[in-house]
């Protein structure tokens, strides 16, 4: 009975509010579906074109040594040959891993050492004018020296082992971290410092709990720059003298004239650098959710 009445009402009441609602929801659903499809098509297109670009590049590389006269395939090995060596060294003999491990460990320790001192020096010189004025000429003078130029000196002081590599990387990583942290800490918005002071924060608490986090966007920019520098210095140090490591592998391949092995070394260096950067961005997003939003405002 009541159901019948409902039906009747539905028939005579022309613009029923929930009919309008249903209609709107249907339109919204269609709209959303269309938008998602559009976005998906966009992503597919981007992926497809990216893959096509890579394939075209590899094809050109594969074909060029065969068709261009006077090119020695030993000097310019095609991707098929490099891929074979890469798979061999990675899976069959596994001889790449000690080199990768040695390089990664050196880069990691050097980076950690340099970044730690860089952050500490940046916060201290950013907060303390006296300290800044004392250290400014020395630090900026040292910073002007290209890190690679120190390689021979480091070998004289710390030998050919891991220590000299770690020290060199630390040296190279220190300066970008220090400079960026320093700028970040020096230019903290004054309201943060005043807020902290009005809430009773001591100078030390202000340094660690306000100045450092407020400068984090700058610190991260410095750390990211330092990862790139770390790899440059790492390879430079390993090229000069080492018994292991990707830089050593490349220079050894040079001695035995195996350009394909050189390529394998380069590929690994590129992949490691890329992954390190991605890891960095991920960690940033994971542990500092406010970071991007704050930089945007």
């Amino acid at each position, binding site marked *: 009975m009541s159901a019948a009445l409902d039906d009747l009402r539905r028939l005579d009441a022309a613009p029923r509010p929930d009919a309008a609602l249903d209609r709107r929801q249907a339109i919204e659903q269609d709209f959303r579906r269309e938008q998602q499809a559009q976005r998906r098509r966009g992503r597919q297109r981007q992926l497809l074109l990216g893959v096509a670009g890579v394939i075209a590049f590899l094809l050109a590389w594969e074909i060029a040594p065969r068709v261009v006269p006077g090119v020695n395939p030993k000097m310019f090995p095609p991707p098929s040959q490099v891929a074979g060596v890469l798979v061999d060294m990675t899976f069959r003999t596994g001889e790449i891993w000690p080199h990768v491990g040695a390089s990664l460990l050196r880069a990691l320790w050097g980076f950690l050492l340099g970044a730690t001192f860089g952050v500490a020096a940046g916060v201290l010189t950013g907060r303390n004018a006296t300290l800044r004025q004392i250290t400014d000429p020395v630090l900026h003078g040292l910073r002007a020296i290209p890190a690679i130029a120190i390689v021979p000196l480091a070998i004289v002081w710390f030998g050919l082992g891991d220590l000299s590599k770690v020290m060199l990387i630390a040296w190279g990583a220190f300066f970008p971290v220090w400079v960026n942290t320093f700028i970040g800490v020096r230019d903290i918005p004054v*309201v943060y410092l*005043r807020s902290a*002071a009005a*809430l*009773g*924060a*001591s100078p030390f608490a202000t340094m660690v*709990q306000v100045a450092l986090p407020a400068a984090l966007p700058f610190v991260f920019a410095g750390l990211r720059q330092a990862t790139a520098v770390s790899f440059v210095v790492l390879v430079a140090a390993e090229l000069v003298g080492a018994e292991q490591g990707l830089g050593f592998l490349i220079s050894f391949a040079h001695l035995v004239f195996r350009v394909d092995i050189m390529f394998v070394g380069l590929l690994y260096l590129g992949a490691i650098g890329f992954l390190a950067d991605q890891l960095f961005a991920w960690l940033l997003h994971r542990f500092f959710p*406010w970071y991007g939003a*704050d930089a945007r405002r």
Partner: protein
Amino acid sequence: MNAPATAAPPAVRVRDASKLYASSGGELNWAMTGVDLDIGDGEFVCAIGPSGCGKTTLLNTIAGFIQPTTGRVTAGGRRVSGPGADRGVVFQEYALFPWLTARSNIEFGLKMQGLDAKARRRRADELLALTGLSHAATRYPFELSGGMRQRIAVARALATQPKVLLMDEPFAAIDALTRTSLQRELLRIWQELKLSVFFITHNIEEAVFLAQRVVVMSAHPGRIREIVDIDLPYPRDRADPAFGELYARIGAAFAQTDEASA
């Protein structure tokens, strides 16, 4: 509504305070001259004036962020020599720590006092409830609207239980509708906690709505022009003719200061 002449010192006493600044070109400028002001216990005082009238300089002096060139400032009878948790400060905008959640922002002052985590959390939750933002405790400032941010900023300033709340144009960047509700909330909190409030604004209506006394300041050099008592009962009605009268009176004082500084 002046502080009664008893032995108890007023919440804030400013005597003959002046501040001289040098510009980067070496030019000297009196940001504030000969300011005398008492803020009584539980009193709500607004300062209003054109830019350059020294209202923010006065607030910064009371907060202890800057030292006056001449004169003295006391809070609760003790000379102000620097910022302290007995005087809470709310800034115009973007003063919340963006790396801390709303709750952690509120807890910051308590952490500095060495309170343990449990007590901090209890107090922060009380303040979140007081400002009606319990649901936003774990959000970061960038996830909050302007009005919510300023509520959290008030809660943060109140966490250490200051006697005096100093507010530097806290609602200037907030849209008009939200501002009205923030003003009502502020009055409720002021009455509930029996605070002394010193509130800077450039909005005459806001001053008349909130304050028991309005300090009208003028520029070049910055000084107090007039102090207007607002003897209207709370809650105030903007449509009340008496409200309009006081608005007009302060507007006239304002116009005079404009002529004087032009």
